[in-house]
């Protein structure tokens, strides 16, 4: 089976969908001739031509708005926002328009667009190349939000997102593009080729949106994570020796509430991890869900490990980043309470 890093897997998903479905068009800033600043669309314009894969003006609001129009016509646009930090000029089009089109038109119109955007930090990108704005979108009914953590999942989830008839925000943790980064920034980078999930079939497969994955079964505590934090959580579990069950949520909306509840009901403890800032982050929603579904099973307060409530700093990036030590400390706290 081919071995791919996450960029190659995303490229492969786009390739498969451009091949299979004439309605798929791919566009965004620098995605055409150049193939994207992260190379996710490399070679696609050469292969499918400029009418299917093209560069856009630097106008995120315009990119999403035209994608809605194309989607209303019947195309299946896949757009790239160069960094999640630059999605805000498109916020109105996403929140007021894409998300509500189906509802307000009584099902007459809909916008089957996919918005890809690299998210997360760990590359010294400073405040405007590091953000994780997922909770701004999970709060909006009508949008779906996906965040993969491996090449295999990235391809299958992206294909599912493109095939979905509702608007999907597809956040790609850029720190994972080249390897399963576990938060140990002072150690050499592990390439994806050493990881089983880098085996990615060439052809078409879809991973259904709304299904979490148990990436490490365990009995003592449930860890809920997504994106880069899945690998950080695995490292923390390994280093702390706790027999934790690590769940990769993969899609935040729709959320695999049953999968989460089944695990926490068994372990009786829960640690939630995300890189985004804390207050009103997606962890708050997860805590509410666990409390609603598992209150009588809980043996300890739910723990939450997140970025601090500050803009992503440049020099102090690793003091912001919720690394394995902070996750391990939370695991320990969860295990000490009974």
């Amino acid at each position, binding site marked *: 089976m081919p071995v791919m890093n996450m960029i190659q897997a995303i490229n492969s998903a786009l390739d498969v969908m451009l091949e299979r479905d004439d309605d798929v068009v791919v566009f965004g800033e620098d995605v055409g001739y150049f193939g994207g600043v992260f190379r996710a669309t490399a070679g696609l314009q050469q292969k499918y031509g400029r009418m299917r894969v093209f560069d856009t003006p630097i106008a995120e609001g315009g990119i999403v708005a035209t994608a809605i129009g194309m989607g209303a016509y019947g195309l299946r646009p896949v757009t790239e926002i160069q960094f999640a930090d630059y999605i805000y000029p498109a916020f109105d089009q996403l929140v007021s328009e894409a998300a509500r089109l189906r509802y307000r038109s009584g099902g007459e119109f809909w916008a089957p667009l996919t918005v890809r955007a690299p998210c997360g930090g760990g590359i010294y990108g*400073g405040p405007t190349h590091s953000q994780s704005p997922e909770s701004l979108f999970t709060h909006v009914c009508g949008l779906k939000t996906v965040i993969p953590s491996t090449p295999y999942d990235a391809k299958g989830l992206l294909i599912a997102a493109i095939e979905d008839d509702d608007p999907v925000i597809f956040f790609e943790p850029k720190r994972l593009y080249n390897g399963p980064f576990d938060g140990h920034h002072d150690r050499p980078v592990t390439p994806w080729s050493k990881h089983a999930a880098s085996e990615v079939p060439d052809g078409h497969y879809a991973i259904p949106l709304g299904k979490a994955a148990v990436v490490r079964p365990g009995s003592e505590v449930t860890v809920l994570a997504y994106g880069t934090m899945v690998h950080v959580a695995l490292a923390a579990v390994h280093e702390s020796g706790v027999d934790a069950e690590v769940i990769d949520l993969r899609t935040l909306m729709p959320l695999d509430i049953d999968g989460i509840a089944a695990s926490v009901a068994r372990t009786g403890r829960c640690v939630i991890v995300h890189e985004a800032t804390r207050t009103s982050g997606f962890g708050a929603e997860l805590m509410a869900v666990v409390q609603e579904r598992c209150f009588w099973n809980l043996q300890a307060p739910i723990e939450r490990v997140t970025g601090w409530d500050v803009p992503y700093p440049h020099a102090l990036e690793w003091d*912001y980043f919720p690394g394995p030590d902070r996750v391990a400390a939370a695991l320990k706290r969860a295990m000490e309470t009974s």
Partner: protein
Amino acid sequence: MNQFVNNAQALRLHIPEPQCRPGDAPDFGALRLPPAGGLPRPGFTADESTLRHLPYALIRVLDDDDAAVGEWRPNLGLERLCEGLRAMMLTRAFDEAMQRAQRKGKASFFIKSTGEEAVAVAQAYALDARDMLFPSYRQQGLLIARGWPIEQMMCQILSNSGDQLKGRQLPTMYSAREAGVFSLSGNLGTQFPQAVGWAMASALRGDTRIAASWVGDGTTAEADFHHALTFASVYRAPVILNVVNNQWAISSFAGIAGGERATFAARAIGYGMAGLRVDGNDFLAVHAATQWAAERARANAGATLIELYTYRAAAHSTSDDPSAYRPREEAAQWPLGDPIERLKRHLIRCEAWSESRQQALQQEVDEQVRAALRQAESLGVIGDTRIERDSLFDDVYKTLPAHLQAQREQLRKEG
């Protein structure tokens, strides 16, 4: 009754493509460059309706023989021009040194302004030192021309303990209140309408200071560009709005930003605002155009949109390799030449300068940069920034709220 078009032909979409890609020989043959000196200079309070040819013209002062010609020739002494040459050379030496520092792992990122030095330096010279500037990341020459210490800029780039911005910003996202330079944002175009707001405030208060802002050709596509023009035009705000058309926006040529059929200066026409288009590599022309716009703003005659026509000679940033999307030799063949070279030749022609003085000045600015960098590096570099960890939580709000105090405690405890 419904109406249908009979025999309608199939529609086709136009996707702009630049003339040359890697492997092609650079070709600027389609560029129509009017000769220097031919364009009349209208009075700075002229009615906008009489200025609508200017966005399609090109203000040029230095001719092919390096002489300064025509009505736009600015009233600038030779001494001031020599200072301008020095500021441009210092800017270029600074850029070279910081690029090298980035390559050695001392900085995470850097953006050069090579080939665009006249834009920042001549424009800074044409404005009053108290005017407020809202630049993009490619006008480091504004800070240098205003005499802001290059050590300070270097500390920002190294993100070290000497950085006034406390290591928070990506390198090149300067902020220098004392020099009248607003904090840069990584989000393109956001500051363009903010500059208009600053200028509106200055006018509301009966102040005498004007504002100026800069965006690239690519950034003109953002809605904020149009917000700026609308507000500037509606309120006749005392502001100068600059578009630095360096032909490229990372890998996208100016045609992708809408530069194929109309000039960027011509955006002004639709807003009823004065628009000037100027040879951005001609120090004298840039100065003249900016001075005209500044006089117009100071006379309450309204805002001006200036397109500075230039070429991004270097990579977009240290993360970019332009040989993937444009011919390698393109920069060297830019028909409007290099701004430093052109001003130098003009000064030599005026017998105010010589090749040997040029060489001596080169050594002088190189040494100045080397000494400043030594000083800056002694305060830390990326990876060893020596920035106080507690400072992470400062300045989110004016005073530290309880929840951030608690988070700071937790960071101290958990490391």
